């Protein structure tokens, strides 16, 4: 399976458009929207710190969701998934290789936002906070990697891009990755706080505030992970029986 991971990775690193959107783009947005001074209401965090976590989460989300869902749907339709079933590679190997290679791309997108924030916007945190942030955002992205796999097995090759886009922008915006959800009307805030992206960014912010992550956020992320991974596993099995 290592050789498949290596090849998936080679391919991802070769795709400049994908690399731009997952590694460079979040840092660019960070620079554009972190210009205000002062703090974000109710958090005690500076705008730059607040947006840094949002964009690091957004970058990781992009890397694990965008590439996988579309590739899986297309490769399922094109027959590559069938072809792989004619090799000794275990059935799960394909999905694991996709997830592993996405995780490798998502790490630099997180670190890039941190580097830009520290260098350009003078964001300063304790050493343990940098590591904890990186680890939490990286590990949390597994939730969305599972979602990407589920969409890849759910959607047809034609429908996968619009579906991914709707889910991607919906989760990013409603989850408060682009602007603080405290700026939303109350009814929207009530919806937003149950979204996995909201809990995901809240995880990082808790670390910035030197707090332990909220139990509710962790519970939401775990619940969504089980939902997405279970859905992906079920759809995968269904697809296998269909050949």
């Amino acid at each position: 399976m290592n050789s498949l991971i290596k090849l998936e990775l080679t391919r991802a690193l070769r795709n400049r458009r994908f690399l731009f959107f997952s590694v460079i783009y979040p840092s660019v947005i960070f620079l554009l929207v972190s210009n205000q001074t002062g703090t974000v209401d109710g958090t005690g965090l500076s705008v730059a710190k607040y947006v840094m976590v949002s964009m690091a989460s957004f970058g990781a989300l992009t890397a694990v969701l965008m590439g996988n869902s579309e590739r899986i749907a297309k490769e399922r339709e094109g027959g590559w998934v069938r072809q792989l079933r004619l090799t000794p590679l275990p059935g799960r190997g394909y999905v694991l290789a996709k997830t592993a290679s996405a995780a490798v791309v998502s790490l630099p997108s997180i670190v890039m936002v941190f580097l830009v924030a520290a260098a350009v916007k003078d964001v300063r945190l304790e050493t343990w906070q940098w590591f904890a942030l990186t680890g939490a955002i990286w590990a949390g992205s597994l939730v969305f990697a599972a979602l990407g796999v589920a969409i890849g097995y759910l959607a047809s090759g034609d429908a996968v891009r619009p579906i991914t886009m709707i889910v991607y922008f919906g989760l990013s915006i409603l989850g408060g990755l682009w602007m603080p959800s405290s700026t939303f009307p109350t009814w929207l805030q009530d919806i937003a706080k149950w979204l996995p992206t909201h809990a995901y960014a809240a995880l990082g912010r808790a670390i910035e505030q030197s707090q332990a992550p909220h139990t509710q956020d962790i519970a939401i992320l775990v619940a969504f992970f089980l939902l997405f991974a279970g859905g992906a596993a079920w759809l995968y099995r269904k697809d296998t029986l269909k050949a």
Partner: protein
Amino acid sequence: MVRMTTTATAAGTPVVGFDQVSKVYGNVRAVDGLTLALHPGETVALLGPNGAGKSTTLDLLLGLRNPDGGTVQVFGTTPRQAIVAGRVGAMLQSGGLMDEVTVAELVKLACDLHPRPYQVRDVLARAGIAQIADRKVNKLSGGQSQRVRFALATAGDSDLIVLDEPTTGMDVSARQAFWATMREQADQGRTVLFATHYLEEADAIADRVLVLHRGRLLADGTAAEIKAKAGARRVAFDLEGPIDEAPLRALPFLTSIDISGQTVRIQSTDADATVHALYGLGVYPRNLEVAGLGLEQAFVAITEAEEAKQS
């Protein structure tokens, strides 16, 4: 895996064994009570028109689908176990490839995944794609893609090679080169099974031909036997004067007759005996021609006979 110890049983363990296998899609019986065995070293053609159930049969053999009834065994185990053991190399008709990687990278992946791999360089050379090794997989022509699929199927030392319409999209010379390569594989003692609707391929390459029709095995034998089964030689001659049809129709081994003007065309399962009897009638046939039917016509005849029986 269980190895048979007694010689008699070992000789009888088929490479592939189908026992009363059925597969139903909705109300279509794609494969209908199929029983067959392939033996070590055979080169077998699976022949049939579109919709005959060839691809479904191969899917069942490769474990891509599960049968609704009956059992499929490959080397005495399940298809999946045989694949995991590296004993089966397969090339699918709809075998998609991984985009945006080079031919060499993809072949290397197949070699890495095989338990008994060959050298990437050798696999590329044998499939005739060494000169396009650095090309991106999604920039290949149809025939080149087929060769890449063939390389994936032969990346390691497998005992059975399964090919679903392998020469689709190849021109004539590519097709000839492909079958020359395939013969090498067979000469090394491998069992080869290929589905085709290029009937001349089955005729030219296979030791054994399985004719599939509506999911059932219609004929099983050498290409020569299948031709014979369908009345496979054509006798044509001209007669002078008025033609007396009745004795001609009574000729032995005759399966069909067509008289137009002074020309008589006969199909016979034993042309020698038919011609001998023809002279016995006291007529003087001119421009006598005896020719073999291609497998294509033999195949059409078998299929028509089967359809006539059913209606």
